[in-house]
């Protein structure tokens, strides 16, 4: 997907959010919607102007808009992410982004399923092993020390109430 198409998707999603806010505001009383409603309308107008503007400009100027285009001559160079990459590069970048998203999603799923401490142990240990940053014994030792430190700090010293995860009832049944 070209940079312009991506920018258009983003601005369309934002416009949809502002429309949703406007619709939801209709259910609120006059006081409760006093600020959100005009603000969402303002946001929608801004999104519409930005959408029109970014489609009228060249790809290199996608970082700019109607107000700031005059600053072009004085502003710093266009950031690298704004430049069109080649098809292959874009594919690699997308896969890397998907990988990063997967890493964070994996930690989230582990936390939800098992609770924070087992998730920290599995995630950190798994990351060290998969990236082969450390040897297996060293990775396991560092993981154990880090998990113990996290547990001690948050759940022993600070006495945060632990969460046992969505799988806890299932594990309890086996007990």
């Amino acid at each position, binding site marked *: 997907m070209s940079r312009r198409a991506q920018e258009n998707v983003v601005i369309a999603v934002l416009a949809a959010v502002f429309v949703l806010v406007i619709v939801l505001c209709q259910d609120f009383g006059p*006081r409760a919607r006093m600020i959100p409603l005009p603000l969402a309308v303002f946001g929608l107008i801004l999104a519409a102007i930005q959408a029109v503007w970014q489609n009228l400009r060249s790809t290199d100027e996608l970082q700019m808009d109607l*107000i700031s285009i005059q600053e072009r001559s004085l502003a710093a160079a*266009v950031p690298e992410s704004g430049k069109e990459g080649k098809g292959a590069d874009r594919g690699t970048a997308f896969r890397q982004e998907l990988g990063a998203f997967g890493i964070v999603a994996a*930690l989230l799923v582990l936390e939800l399923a098992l609770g*924070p401490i087992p998730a920290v142990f599995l995630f950190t240990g798994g*990351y060290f092993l998969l990236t082969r940053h450390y040897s297996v014994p060293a990775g396991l030792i560092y993981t154990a020390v880090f998990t113990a430190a*996290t547990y001690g*700090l948050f759940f022993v010293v600070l006495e*945060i109430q632990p969460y046992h995860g969505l799988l806890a009832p299932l594990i309890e049944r086996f007990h």
Partner: protein
Amino acid sequence: MLEAITSGLAALLTPQAILFMFIGVVYGLVIGILPGLGGVVAMALLLPFTYGFETAATLALLLGAHIATIWGDSVTSILFSVPGSAKGLALCFDGYPMTKQGQATRALAASATGALMGGIIGAVFLALCIPLIRPVILALGPSEYLMMALWGLTVIATFSEGSLMKGLIASVLGVLVAFIGTDVVTATPRFTFGSEFLLDGISFPVAMIGLFAVSEMMKLAIKGTPIVDRAQVREDSTVWQGIRDALRHWWLVVRSSLLGLWIGVLPGVGASVAGLAAYAQAAQTSKTPERFGKGAVEGVIAPDATMGANEGGGLMPTLAFGIPGGESMALLLVAFIGLGVVPGPEMLTKNLDLVFSMVWIVVIANIVVTVIGLAICPALARLPTLHANLMVPIVLSVCFVGAYATRSRIEDVVVAFVFGLLGYLMDKYRYSRANFVIGMVLAVMIERNLHISLTLYGADFLMQRPIALAMLAFVLITAALPFIRHVRRRKRARIGGDAGTGAVL
């Protein structure tokens, strides 16, 4: 008064008070560095241990911990763009770019020195202003608070370089996100979609963990190299450079400290607003505002000086009227009750030595924090050079556990995840994350004070509140300043260009 000053200091020179102060400071630094936890958590956790000890020692423990969290917050903001709490947000804007440029030691040292200078200025002014402040506080109302919040919004232009329109859209989005939850004025659930969890709204620390920390770790995972790659960027800054920076910008420190003191005095405004306001005034008064957001040391010094002084300011209404300046001061009030101390006008007559003990605690705790901070700066500055394969799992894990720890609700981890993705996309498509958070922080204050102003004074509340009107004029002038400067620069550039052309011709 002199007797009260000396007896206030003498009360702190007992072994118990000295030990408690040191424990409080070290504990506060650790809590401050943990994401999601700030001064309020530090004080709340210490509260049960405060009964049965000397009054001065107890206050040294509580205030020492609270003051230490300020610099603790700054450390992670500067090194990893992970704000420990809402207060540390403004430090991410220039502190993190400095780290990426190999200037971490300098940034940390400037931050510690700025906080020390701010803390001392705040404490001195606290001591001097106690008798004068009462009529000033009583003269201000919700309309004036509304104007202060609007002033905070003027910083948006600073973070919108390249696309002011996108910057504005980001702040509108931030304001709308802040409205998720029960409306404090009408008790209407807004944008909650029937979720019980969302009735409490989105937690600021959790949102910031997601927007800044999680998204930065995603970027690091993609990059696969350290935040600071020593092969490309050398860490050649020193502690002394940072100290010199703070001393060189002494006037900025004084201005920021007075601003912090002032915001601290106003009940309910909070240090997060103070940090942003300090950043705004530093950027707006700078001769080179275009450096802000790219690693300007003034962007580190100003928020830290403000937050250092903010504590002194926060003590003023707490001691003089029993009105807490913020959440941490409310906890201090609880501690006062446990110690049998009644805050109010009598504090300034019967318990003046205790008041000065607190002034001394602010000064001494700031000095201890700075000494420890400056000593560990070079070691801390090495952390961003750790490989991404080590940083990503450790920081992500701590961030998610920190997100859970803010309210002991697992849903907050999901919020951190969602905001992490949002932060990544905003950064990728150049929608300013800073503007988003500024909108989020100031939205509730703006809405609440607007409603109260309308109820108290009607639609023409500005006409009835001349101070608010004057403040509005000030807000408009400061908002217009960047554009006026820009026009002037363009004119100058055009004249320079013409002259150049003339020379060629």
